[in-house]
C-alpha cells in the first residue's frame, strides 16, 4: 500500500523528467529518421508517420547517405575535418603542457603577471583577431591551407589549455617532485615521467574538449579557409549546402548526421572525460 502511494506521489516528478527528455531528444530523432527516408516520403509526410508501421523497414534506405558522401562531397569534407581537427588538438595541448608545467613548477621573473595575462586572454572574442590575421595570412600565403588553420586553432585554444593544465599540474603534490630531483631526475624527466602520466585523465578531457571545439567550429574555418572547397571541413560544407539545397531535406538531414557522427561517438564513448573537462574549465570564452 505504502509502495503504491510512494509511486503515485513521485509520479509528477517522473512525468516532468520524461517529458523534458522527450522534448530534448525529438528534434534529433526527427533528423535521424528523415535521413533514412525516401526523398518523396520526406516531402509528402512528416517523419513521425513512420511510427505508424514501425516494423516496415522498406521505408528506410541509405540512398541519401551515399549521395551526400559522394556526389555532394561530404566524404572529402569528412577527411578534411579529420585533417584539421587532429593536429589542431595535439599541437596546442603539447605546447600548453610545457607552458603549464613551467607556470606550475618553475621559478622565473614575471610568472604571475604572464599567467594573469593568460587568464585575461581566455575570453577575448575571436572577432577581435580576424581582420589582422586574415591580412597576415593573405600576405604569407597561409590562407586556405591546413597549416594556417592548425596554427589559428592552436592560438585560440592555447589560453584555455595553459590555464587548465597549469591548474592540474599545480595540484600535484610537491613532495613528489622534490623526491624525483633528489634522485637526480632532470626537469624534463620529472615532466615526462611524473607530471604527464599522472595527468592522463586531465589531458584526455582537455583533448576531447579541444577536438570537439575544432570539429564543430564554423567561424574560424569560414574566415581562414574561405570558399576553398579542397580544404573545407564538414561544418563549412554543411552550411553551404543549407544555402544551396534549401528544401532538399532528405540530403540536408543525411549531411547533418554525417557531420554529427564523430562528436556523437566521442560523446557516448568518452562522456565521463568530456563532462570532467567541462567542469574543470567552464570559463572559456
Amino acid at each position, binding site marked *: 500500500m505504502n509502495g503504491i502511494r510512494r509511486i503515485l506521489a513521485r509520479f509528477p516528478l517522473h512525468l516532468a523528467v520524461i517529458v*523534458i527528455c522527450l522534448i*530534448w*531528444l525529438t528534434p*534529433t530523432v*526527427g*533528423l535521424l529518421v528523415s535521413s533514412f527516408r525516401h526523398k518523396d516520403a*520526406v*516531402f*509528402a*509526410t512528416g*517523419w*513521425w508517420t513512420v511510427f505508424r508501421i514501425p516494423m516496415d523497414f522498406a521505408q528506410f534506405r541509405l540512398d541519401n547517405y551515399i549521395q551526400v558522401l559522394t556526389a555532394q562531397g561530404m566524404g*572529402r569534407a569528412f*577527411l578534411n575535418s579529420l*585533417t584539421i581537427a*587532429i*593536429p589542431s588538438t*595535439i599541437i596546442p595541448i*603539447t605546447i*600548453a603542457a*610545457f*607552458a603549464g*608545467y613551467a*607556470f606550475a613548477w*618553475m621559478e622565473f621573473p614575471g610568472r604571475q603577471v*604572464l599567467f594573469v595575462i593568460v587568464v585575461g586572454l*581566455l*575570453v*577575448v572574442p575571436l*572577432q*577581435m583577431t*580576424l*581582420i*589582422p*590575421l586574415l591580412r597576415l595570412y593573405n600576405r604569407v600565403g597561409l590562407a586556405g591551407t*591546413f597549416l594556417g588553420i*592548425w*596554427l589559428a586553432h*592552436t592560438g*585560440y585554444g592555447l*589560453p584555455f589549455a*595553459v590555464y587548465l593544465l597549469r591548474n592540474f599540474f599545480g595540484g600535484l603534490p610537491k613532495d613528489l617532485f622534490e623526491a624525483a630531483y633528489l634522485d637526480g631526475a632532470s*626537469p624534463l624527466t620529472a615532466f615526462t615521467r611524473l607530471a604527464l602520466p599522472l595527468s592522463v585523465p586531465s589531458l584526455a578531457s582537455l583533448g576531447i574538449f579541444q577536438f570537439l571545439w575544432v*570539429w*564543430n567550429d*564554423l*567561424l574560424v574555418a569560414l574566415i581562414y579557409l574561405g570558399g576553398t572547397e579542397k580544404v573545407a571541413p564538414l561544418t563549412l560544407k*554543411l*552550411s553551404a549546402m*543549407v544555402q544551396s539545397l534549401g528544401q532538399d531535406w532528405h540530403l*540536408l538531414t543525411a549531411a*547533418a548526421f554525417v557531420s*554529427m557522427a564523430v*562528436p*556523437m561517438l566521442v560523446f557516448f564513448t568518452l*562522456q565521463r572525460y*568530456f563532462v570532467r573537462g*567541462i*567542469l574543470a574549465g567552464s*570559463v572559456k570564452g
Partner: protein
Amino acid sequence: MSEFLSQVFTTLLAILLGVGGVVGLFLGMEFLIGFLPQRLQPKVRPWAYIGPTLLIMGIYLVYPTLHTLYLSFLDERSQQFVGLKNYLWTLTSPEMHIAFRNNLLWIVLMTLFSVGLGLVIAVLVDRVSYESVAKSVIFLPMAISFVGASVIWRFVYAFKPANVPQIGLLNAIVTALDGQPLGWLVDTRVNNLALIAVGIWLQTGFCMVILSAGIKSIPREILEAARVDGASEWRIFWQVIVPMIGSTIAVVATTVIINALKAFDIVFVLTNGQRGTEVIANRMYKEMFSFLNFGRASAIAVILLLAIIPIMAANIRRFQAQEAIR
C-alpha cells in the same frame, strides 16, 4: 579512389609532421640548454617551456587585438584616419540598433532559460534512479555543432501552406491544434525567439552538468536537516540549494552571457540576419566579407570586446582570490 587514398596519406603525414615538429622543438631546446653552464640552466629552461606559448599567443591574440583597435579608427580600406566615425556609425545606424536589441534579447532569454532550466533539470534528475540517462539526453546537444543544430531546428521549423500536410514538427503540432501554420524563421513576431530557442536547446545541457555537480557538493546532512524541520521541497530549493550554489550559478551565467554576446553560427546558417534577426557578430562578418568595410567591422569587434572586459576583469579577480588562498 586514388584521390581518397592520397588525402588519407596527406592526413596521416600532416598529423605526424605537426605532432613530431612540436615534440621535436621542445626536445631540441632541451638539448641546447644542456650545453649551457649548470648555473644558467634553471634560468633559461622556463623560457624555453613557455616561449612557444608566448610567441603564438602574441601573434594570434595580442597583436591582432591591438591592431583591430587601431583599424577601428581608420576608413573602410584602412588608409585614412577617420576618428570616431566608425563608432558613431556603430552606435547610431538602424542596422546596428537591431543587432544590439537582438543581442540583448539573446543575453536575457538564453541566460534566463538555459540557467533556469538547467537548474530545474539538475534538481529533478537528482531524485530519479535513471539520472545518468536523463542527463545524457539533455547534454547530447553539447556535442553537436551549431551548424548541425541549425539544420535540426530548421527542419523542426519547416513551413508548408495550410492545405498540405506539414513536414515540420512545430507546424504539424500547430495545425493539429487547429492553428494556422507559421513561418517561424521569417515571421518577425517569432523569428528571434525561434533562433534563441536553438541556443537554449544547445546550452541547457552545459548549465545542467555544472549546476548538478554544484548540487551534489551540498552536504546531504543540510538537506536532511531542513526536511526534518519540515521545510517543503520548494523552500529547500529556494532557501538552501540556490544560495549554496550561488557562485556556481554566477560562473555558468557568465559563460552563457559570453556565448549569447558572440552568437553567430545559428543566425548565420538559419536567417543570415534577415527580417530583423541580425546580431552583432553576424553584422561584423558581413561588414568584413560582404561590404569590405574593415573600419566598421573593427569597430564592431571592439564593441564586443568592451562588453566582455568586465567579465575578463571579474575572471582575473576571481583567479587572484583563488591564488591567495592556495
